[in-house]
């Protein structure tokens, strides 16, 4: 299909750039239009059209091996401001366009301006700004321009996050996010400064142009890890992530989690392309950080009771998996084992694509759920599947996919990573990498716990609170994005080899050494087998279903209340709730997951009514960072005595300064 498009004379890069700009400007008319809702409709239509133009053109750019350069004219003294789209950028552009379009469509039903007069305009405007800044970021090749777009992205995300700033927790989340992202930006200041010191200009270096052995390179890598890692949410830089994703409007959380985190990963990818000889240490650090992030992230997710917090923690987990893949690939580069490089990168990039499908799907789903039940607390939901069967189906697809279970897309990417680990057994170097496999398996198992908890406590059983008792099916504008994403998840799951072909150009541009290898064909054929099994599985399920229903037609089908094992007075509240479901797992992993538990105090022979509340804590934030801040506050308060309002002492300061400078001068 793209050959025909290539025939058309218009340059795809130009199309992509203008699409990004259109998305950025989409929200502006709404700021001035008097009539509510008109602006929202306009921006949605514009965004979707732009995305429809942008997606094929970025696909084209992905497969065409030419990269065109556009130079922006600006008056700033940091060299030319260039926009380039190479396959790596093009690959990352896909989720940007897809998810932002889906989100803006979702917003029409989820955040209608009829109900949110005051906030809708700002929300729409900053949403467009966020989407387009992410797109432009991927094209920026001038460090300072990159930094600017980066910060525009971060700030617009902040303003989106504090949309409902009358709520205390939203403000708190916003502040934490802002501080975290700004600290990350400070690290990026260092990063670009040292890059400039290394290359002599603020342009990003070309692939493989730097040596990684100089100490400056180490500083650059560290700064990149801190600056970009803070955005991506790699532990221990993830502190802002759960509360931010939980408190933003759902479609914003979808974009933040589905796309914005990937921008941090993009930064790390881009940085690693600069160096032609990364030392083993870098790969090792990334791998360890990745697997630890994955394990801790999913462990936190298991413990959550807040629907969106759970999703946020699982984002941390997925970022961890991707980072592991990247780290493994880097180890492969350093040790010159090509299959490892290929499989690591393929797994990581494919998982980036997958995560940007099923995570937005789940966040949109959570939006619909919150819309229907009016709460984020999973312990208060239940039985929503009857009210909203379609959303239930889509969310089920998402949950299965995110657990990395066949035949959905999550499995395909993890499968490639597993292959990479096992491959190392026959290579005689780094065979210890294979020990990552059981850890990844554990992560998968915990993911099953977390998401069966999510799904069952939200959709299954009977409603646990009056709020959830009468759910309503989401509107069409909310269902459509869900349907599209769910379909894509299934598609990639059943024919992963196609997705692998999508990933390949990005891999080649990351590590040119792989350009002339037979790996794509080899692993493509393996994935063919995989999709065969997938199809087999589906057909088998269908066959069994048909048989069963044929059987049911003959037999008599009655319906009765659930058998209560003799307890006839069972109410909805004796169901296993979300917290109860994960209690065993949490107790097993109590070393990782800390919980604040308020147990009821039993007194007397007949203790009265009481309740036991346990809620998971942000270990790092609440036990380490917050105390540090208070400590700093105290010490600063002590130092402030310097400004005590005593005139003669002020005079003494002046005199002392004069005296010291005199002594220094002579």
């Amino acid at each position, binding site marked *: 299909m793209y050959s025909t498009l290539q025939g058309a004379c218009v340059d795809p890069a130009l199309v992509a750039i203008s699409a990004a700009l259109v998305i950025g400007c989409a929200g502006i008319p709404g700021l001035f239009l008097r009539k509510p809702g008109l602006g929202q409709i306009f921006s949605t239509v514009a965004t979707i059209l732009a995305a429809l133009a942008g997606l094929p053109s970025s696909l084209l750019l992905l497969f065409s091996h030419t990269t065109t350069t556009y130079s922006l004219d600006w008056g700033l003294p940091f060299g030319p401001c260039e926009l380039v789209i190479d396959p790596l950028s093009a690959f990352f552009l896909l989720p940007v366009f897809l998810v932002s379009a889906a989100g803006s469509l979702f917003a029409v039903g989820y955040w209608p301006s009829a109900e949110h007069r005051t906030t809708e305009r700002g929300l729409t405007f900053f949403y467009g700004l966020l989407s387009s800044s992410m797109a432009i970021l991927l094209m920026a090749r001038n460090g300072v321009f990159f930094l600017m777009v980066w910060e525009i992205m971060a700030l617009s995300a902040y303003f989106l996050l504090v949309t409902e700033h009358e709520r205390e927790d939203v403000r708190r989340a916003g502040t934490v996010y802002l501080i975290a992202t700004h600290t990350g930006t400070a690290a990026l200041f260092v990063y670009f400064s040292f890059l400039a010191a290394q290359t002599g200009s603020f342009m990003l270096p070309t692939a493989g142009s730097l040596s990684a052995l100089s100490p400056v390179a180490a500083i650059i890598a560290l700064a990149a890890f801190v600056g970009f890692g803070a955005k991506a949410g790699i532990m221990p830089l993830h502190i802002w992530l759960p509360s931010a994703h939980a408190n933003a409007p759902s479609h914003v959380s979808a974009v933040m989690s589905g796309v914005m985190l990937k921008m941090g990963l993009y930064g790390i990818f881009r940085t690693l392309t600069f160096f032609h000889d990364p030392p083993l240490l870098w790969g090792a650090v990334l791998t360890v950080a990745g697997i630890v992030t994955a394990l801790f992230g999913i462990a936190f997710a298991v413990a959550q009771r807040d629907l969106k917090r759970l999703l946020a923690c699982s984002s941390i987990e997925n970022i961890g998996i991707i980072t592991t893949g990247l780290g493994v690939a880097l180890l492969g580069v350093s040790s010159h084992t090509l299959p490892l490089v290929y499989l690591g990168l393929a797994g990581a990039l494919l998982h980036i694509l997958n995560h940007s499908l099923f995570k937005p799907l789940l966040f949109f789903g959570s939006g619909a759920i919150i819309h229907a039940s009016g709460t984020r607390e999973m312990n208060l939901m239940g039985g929503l599947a009857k009210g909203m069967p379609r959303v239930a189906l889509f969310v089920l697809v998402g949950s299965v996919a995110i657990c990395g279970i066949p035949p959905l897309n999550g499995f395909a990417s993890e499968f490639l990573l597993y292959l990479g680990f096992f491959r190392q*057994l026959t290579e005689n170097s780094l065979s210890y990498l294979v020990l990552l496999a059981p850890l990844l398996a554990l992560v998968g198992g915990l993911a099953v716990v977390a998401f069966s908890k999510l799904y069952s406590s939200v959709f299954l059983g009977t409603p646990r609170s009056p709020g959830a008792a009468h759910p309503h099916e989401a509107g069409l504008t909310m269902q459509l994005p869900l349907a599209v994403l769910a379909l894509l998840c299934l598609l990639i799951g059943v024919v992963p080899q196609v997705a692998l072909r999508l990933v390949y150009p990005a891999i080649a541009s990351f590590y040119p050494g792989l350009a002339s290898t037979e790996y794509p064909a080899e692993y493509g054929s393996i994935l063919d087998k995989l999709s065969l099994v997938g199809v087999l599985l589906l057909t088998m399920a269908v066959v069994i279903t048909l048989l069963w229903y044929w059987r049911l037609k003959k037999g008599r089908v009655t319906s009765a209340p659930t058998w209560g094992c003799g307890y006839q007075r069972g109410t909805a509240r004796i169901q296993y709730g979300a917290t109860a479901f994960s209690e065993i797992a949490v107790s097993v992993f109590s070393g990782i997951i800390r919980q604040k538990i308020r147990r009821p105090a039993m007194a007397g022979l007949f203790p009265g009514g009481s309740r036991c509340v346990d809620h998971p804590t942000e270990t790092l934030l609440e036990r380490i960072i917050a105390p540090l801040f208070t400590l700093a506050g105290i010490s600063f308060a002590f130092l402030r005595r310097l400004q005590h309002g005593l005139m003669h002492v002020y005079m003494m300061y002046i005199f002392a300064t004069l005296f010291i400078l005199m002594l220094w001068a002579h």
Partner: protein
Amino acid sequence: MTNSTLINCCIHILLALFMPPLLLGVIGKTKAAFAGRVGAPFLQPYFDIIRLLQKGTVFSTTTSWVFRAGPIVALATAAVAALLIPFGAHPSPISFEGDMILYAYLFALGRFFTMAAALDTGSSFEGMGSAREATYSCLAEPTLFFALITLSRLSGSYSLNGMLSNVSSGAWLYAGASLLLLIGGMFIVLLAENCRIPFDDPNTHLELTMIHEVMVLDHSGPAFAIIQYAASLKLFVLGAFFVQLALPFATGHPYLDWGVFIATMLLLAIVIGIVESVMARLRLVRVPQLLVAATILAAFSTLLVIR
């Protein structure tokens, strides 16, 4: 595909279709023998399934379509797994690099839906069961992977066929210790995954202590039949993996090999029966500890081979 492989393929599928319930029958018979009873006939499980298939069905009013999807997916996954695992010396019909990972993850799929179906009924007991199932199986996961690593290290292959067919008596000579550890670990996992004593008691009557059985309390008629059959199939598939690991006898003559396979499977059933009748159920709090112990055994075996 040559003629003989076609025949083997058919035998493979037929065995997978018809043999699983027999294992349950054998186990029952063994336990009866230990208890000094005559016990039900070997084919009792078949009778049960057929009778259940003829019964009507009762669906709980609280359930949705998820409840019905549970048994279907459970059976489908087990069946696909059966096609991936070699029976005895005979290779499996479907085999490719990395199929062992698929093999491991298929069970996760089945589990997900079984748990969802259980929770769909809104009964607190089934909730308990699925909560336990979720945690324990996620503890059992790493053990299986350590086993896979060890095997693929020993065999130098990345597919179940290669792994299991190459673990001949030869491997025992140079990696006996690690294989021994592995067998210990895998046996525990086998019991845990199939909810046998000492982890779970399929025919107890105290729901508070059950895992698997309590999850299927509300399934009735054909649905329950499907579940029973799927459970036995799962036992069969995991058992096939285990016997190939523990008793890798190969005569070289194809039909004799089928016989050997069937014999070893029945032997395994008897062993399970013995274990079930000599051991008592563990307290629930002990279960995770035993599973972790299994993981440690398997991990040691891996370290022994990749150092």
